[in-house]
């Protein structure tokens, strides 16, 4: 299955799209932020520069940001497809995209300190596989920048200092703390991708998966939808603003998922995504036909 289809080419195109074009609703959110900032303020100038940058990157098919991030990938595949081959093809696509300058050579051997030179390394790209009932493939990817990754945080509840208990009010308190700690360092205005529950690993993974959601969607769980909305308003009231220059646009969106947990643990994991909220999603049918979903 899929043996006759050049998946490497499609995967390379997926990487190109993610690195050089932002989803439309993200650009709209940045533009809306620009329009509420004070005329002539540092915040407005920063957002104007960002909007110009988005246009230039799209026009010249060049990376939006020089930190082209970690490619984090989720692939759904039908019964009988070799995940080993999919992994090899995707890794080769990352090499090609690096060669073509859609990506920076962004992998460093942690022990020797040397750049691997071709954009790939241990767990780079990082690929999750899930078998599904569909006949084709669905490939979803984010490019996760490092500056924003460094300001991500994982809290365990209860948190005495923040008076945060094991409930949604506790979640609200630690999320706002994470935004205050991050200031502008994660390239605000950012997107908060949150997971409540899980263990330390699954919680981070599931928080990142929230970045595949459209900014404009509504959480199907009413109390989480309400918390997402409230946190968006309150995070923007903190006044941190674009780049931490001060202003009204600190966060573009808040997305919350949850996993179950064991009794001893109650984790709240916040993945902070920079304004360059890069994702691309494609479905590939058995004939090699492509449907771009983002």
């Amino acid at each position, binding site marked *: 299955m899929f043996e006759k289809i050049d998946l490497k080419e499609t995967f390379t195109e997926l990487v190109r799209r993610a690195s050089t074009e932002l989803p439309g609703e993200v650009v709209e959110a940045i533009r809306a932020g620009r329009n509420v900032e004070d005329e002539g303020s*540092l915040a407005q100038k920063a957002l104007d520069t960002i909007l110009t940058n988005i246009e230039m990157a799209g026009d010249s098919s060049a*990376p939006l940001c020089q930190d082209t991030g970690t490619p984090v990938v989720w692939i759904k595949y039908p019964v009988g497809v070799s995940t080993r081959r999919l992994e090899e093809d995707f890794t080769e696509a990352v090499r090609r995209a690096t060669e073509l300058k859609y990506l920076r*050579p962004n992998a460093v051997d942690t022990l020797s300190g040397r*750049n691997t030179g071709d954009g790939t390394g241990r767990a780079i790209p990082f690929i999750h596989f899930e078998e599904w009932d569909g006949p084709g493939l669905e490939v979803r990817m984010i490019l996760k920048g490092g500056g924003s990754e460094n300001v991500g945080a994982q809290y365990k509840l209860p948190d005495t200092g923040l008076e945060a208990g094991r409930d949604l009010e506790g979640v609200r308190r630690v999320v706002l703390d994470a935004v*205050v700690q991050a200031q502008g360092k994660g390239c605000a205005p950012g997107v908060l991708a949150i997971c409540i529950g899980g263990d330390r690993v699954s919680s981070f993974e599931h928080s990142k998966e929230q970045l595949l959601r459209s900014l404009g969607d509504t959480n199907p769980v009413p109390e989480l939808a309400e918390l997402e909305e409230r946190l968006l308003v309150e995070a923007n009231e903190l006044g941190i603003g674009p780049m931490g220059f001060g202003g009204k646009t600190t966060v573009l969106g808040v997305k919350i998922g949850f996993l179950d947990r064991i009794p001893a643990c109650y984790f709240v994991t916040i993945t902070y995504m920079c304004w360059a909220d890069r994702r691309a999603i494609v479905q590939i049918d058995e004939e090699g036909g492509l449907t771009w979903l983002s």
Partner: protein
Amino acid sequence: MAELKLPVSEESIRNLEVGDFLELSGRMITGRDAAHKWLMEDFREDVAPYLKDSVIYHCGPVVNQKDDGSWEFVAAGPTTSIREEPYQADVIARYGLRGVIGKGGMADRTLTGLGRSGAVYLHAIGGAAQVLARAIPRVEKVFMLDEFGVPEALWVIDVERFPVVVTMDSHGGSLHKVVENGSKTKFDELLGRKG
């Protein structure tokens, strides 16, 4: 928007204040994590002339090598500066830097160093890799490329009207402190706590 030519005098730098918009033109050098550690391990004589009275740009670019062997920056926004906090004030003093370009601001040790040495922190727009790459028309040379790799090498570049904002000046002013304090006050209010 004022234009600032590099190299620059201490006097011109001391005239700058938080909130000033500047466009830089002239020669500067990039350097980030590996470079700062390396610059402090020993006095690097071959690199020193490129640092003196100029600025260091915290940037790990995407670079293309053209057929004739020359280099061009394809994407070149700033990286987070706070990682260089342990080194920055000493690098400024040791090499006679007049400024640092990065994003996210730096802390007290650097702020004190800026006042002592006569230097400023210049904030570029994070992620604006295309806007900024186009303000870098020429790559003059590169140090430590083989050892550090493309993102971490020290690239000597010519810039033209490279846009930045002064967010930390040589008089103890820091926009980052002001914004952080304001956000903490509001945070306490949202949590129903006393500041």
